[in-house]
């Protein structure tokens, strides 16, 4: 492309073409986070449930340590994606803010689990439901919207069952809310 003057029609065509170019560059790889966190949280829930229900293991919550490498992996992946794309769109910025807010909510729920009478799983499922529902609407991807609804139902159920069973409900909720839509999104990204 050179620095030449344009006719009015050429100007209009140029504007339309470039706006389309910018639109087509929305970062791919959103499914990565749903799949990574889906597997990690689902397995941690099931492992914690198994240790509590079928063993006399003293530290059943140790299963959640797996979230630490997952958090590091997420951060590295995010930074690399941003570098490779060389571009930031307003939608990506908003998407990041939504999940940062959900993340802060989850940390607070974990910090105050005692005050929540250890019903924090139900609260976390509710926060995950909100994040997933908004993501689905932003990406205009129905399976994620339904995933958000599945997590909301799991949260309602979790508020009404004993704390141990909340782990089982949480694992199934994450399977329906993160993993299934995550794989469908990955398929769409190809």
């Amino acid at each position, binding site marked *: 492309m*050179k*620095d030449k003057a344009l006719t009015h029609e*050429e100007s209009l065509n140029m504007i339309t073409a470039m706006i389309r170019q*910018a639109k087509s560059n929305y970062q791919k790889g959103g499914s990565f986070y749903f799949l990574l966190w889906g597997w990690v949280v689902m397995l941690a829930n099931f492992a914690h449930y198994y240790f509590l229900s079928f063993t006399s293991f003293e530290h059943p919550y140790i299963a959640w340590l797996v979230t630490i490498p997952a958090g590091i992996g997420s951060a590295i992946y995010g930074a690399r994606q941003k570098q490779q794309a060389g571009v930031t769109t307003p939608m990506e910025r908003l998407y990041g803010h939504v999940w940062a807010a959900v993340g802060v909510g989850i940390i607070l729920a974990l910090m105050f689990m005692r005050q929540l009478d250890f019903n924090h799983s139900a609260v976390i499922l509710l926060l995950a439901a909100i994040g997933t529902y908004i993501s689905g609407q932003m990406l205009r991807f129905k399976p994620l919207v339904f995933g958000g609804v599945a997590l909301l139902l799991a949260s309602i159920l979790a508020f009404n069952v004993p704390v141990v069973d909340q782990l089982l409900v949480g694992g199934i909720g994450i399977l329906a809310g993160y993993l299934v839509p995550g794989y469908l999104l990955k398929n769409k990204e190809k």
Partner: protein
Amino acid sequence: MTGFKPLDPLLHSQLRLAVMSLLIGLDSAAFTYIREKTGATAGNLSVQLDKLSEAGYIEIEKGYNGKKPVTTCKITAQGVEAFESYVNALKEYIG
């Protein structure tokens, strides 16, 4: 042609208009990304970006990604206003 607003000469050029049209929908974009999307040569793009920056239409930030130098551009509020005025004037001409 009386009554028509004159088109901003800074924007009424192929490459500068392409850059502004690209940046209007983005928060920020790397030099390499703009070069790839516009198909311009690095030298020409650099000159045109400087012109847009001098006019206050875009901000250019130079930084490093590890040891690799990275130039990032973003449109300013003044740039958005100029772009909108240009599009409105263009509509009148084509109208």
